[in-house]
């Protein structure tokens, strides 16, 4: 499965900010870690802010803080702010959708979509942090 760039940046941003909800980070600081432009990241952070996941902090130093819940926010919650997860709605594929073949294909793709959504909706930011920490420990051992 491929995620759009904005979705990936959003996931990285909320993960980085939610490590310590008291810590303020600028778009530049986050962008620096993941090698992405501040311009792209700022747009992503703006969308995350409108969703209540991050909050911008004014004043000297500025930046963003995490304002959501790591135990209740899932990867699906973040991704769906930027893209639809799953196949297009029935009827949007033109004449092929009205054929038996089109219906059969839609059934198979629908099965994949349901699995994808269930997987993404079962992984919270808290669980992602655990996965990340485990990966870091593995890297140190190697």
């Amino acid at each position, binding site marked *: 499965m491929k995620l759009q760039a904005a979705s990936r940046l959003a996931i990285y941003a909320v993960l980085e900010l939610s490590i310590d909800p008291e810590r303020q980070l600028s778009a530049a600081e986050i962008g620096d870690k993941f090698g992405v432009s501040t311009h792209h990241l700022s747009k992503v952070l703006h969308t995350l802010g409108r969703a209540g996941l991050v909050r911008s902090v004014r004043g000297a130093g500025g930046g963003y803080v995490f304002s959501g819940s790591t*135990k209740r926010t*899932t990867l699906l919650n973040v991704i769906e702010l930027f893209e639809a997860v799953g196949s297009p709605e029935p009827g949007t594929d033109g004449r092929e959708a009205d054929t038996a073949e089109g219906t059969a294909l839609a059934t198979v793709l629908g099965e994949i979509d349901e699995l994808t959504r269930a997987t993404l*909706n*079962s*992984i*919270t930011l808290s*669980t992602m942090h655990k*996965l990340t920490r*485990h990966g870091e420990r*593995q890297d140190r051992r190697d």
Partner: protein
Amino acid sequence: MVPDYHIANPKQLEQSKAMTQTPAPVAIRKAEKGDLDQIIALDEHITGINKHDYIHDLFERYGARRPEQRFFYVASPLEEPGGRVTGFVIGEVRAWEFGSEPCGWVFAISVDPDAREDGIGAALLDRISESFVQVGVQRLRTMTSRNNHLLMSFFRSRGMMAGPYLQLEKDLT
């Protein structure tokens, strides 16, 4: 004789172990016949279905028989270790089903909704996992409805990831 089961994927086992180091805030013990009324009530509270006969049968099969391979644990508050049941877990070692090497299956785990997010579920899962390891099993498996986001999230938070099997089904009518 306890069979000697091999580790199929050591890396995934390490990952799961690393994510499950949590102290148990509750008392975990083997289920007893006197717990069944509370277990039935707890299950009915969560599912809306009274499964009196089913749970009594489960206790006969998993609480009283083949104790080296079947496990039925309950959780109680630390201050009342023999009293109020706040959760339970049931599982067993299954070998060679669907071509799978022996592994520990958890097929029921419940925590009182009023006592959630206190580490009870984690403690129950850790306890049954220890039992599986003690009898030589190195892999934990379970199955959940993909619509049960709460349970899926819980298992994932304990280091479980999708396994190599897919549950398939069809209507027979």
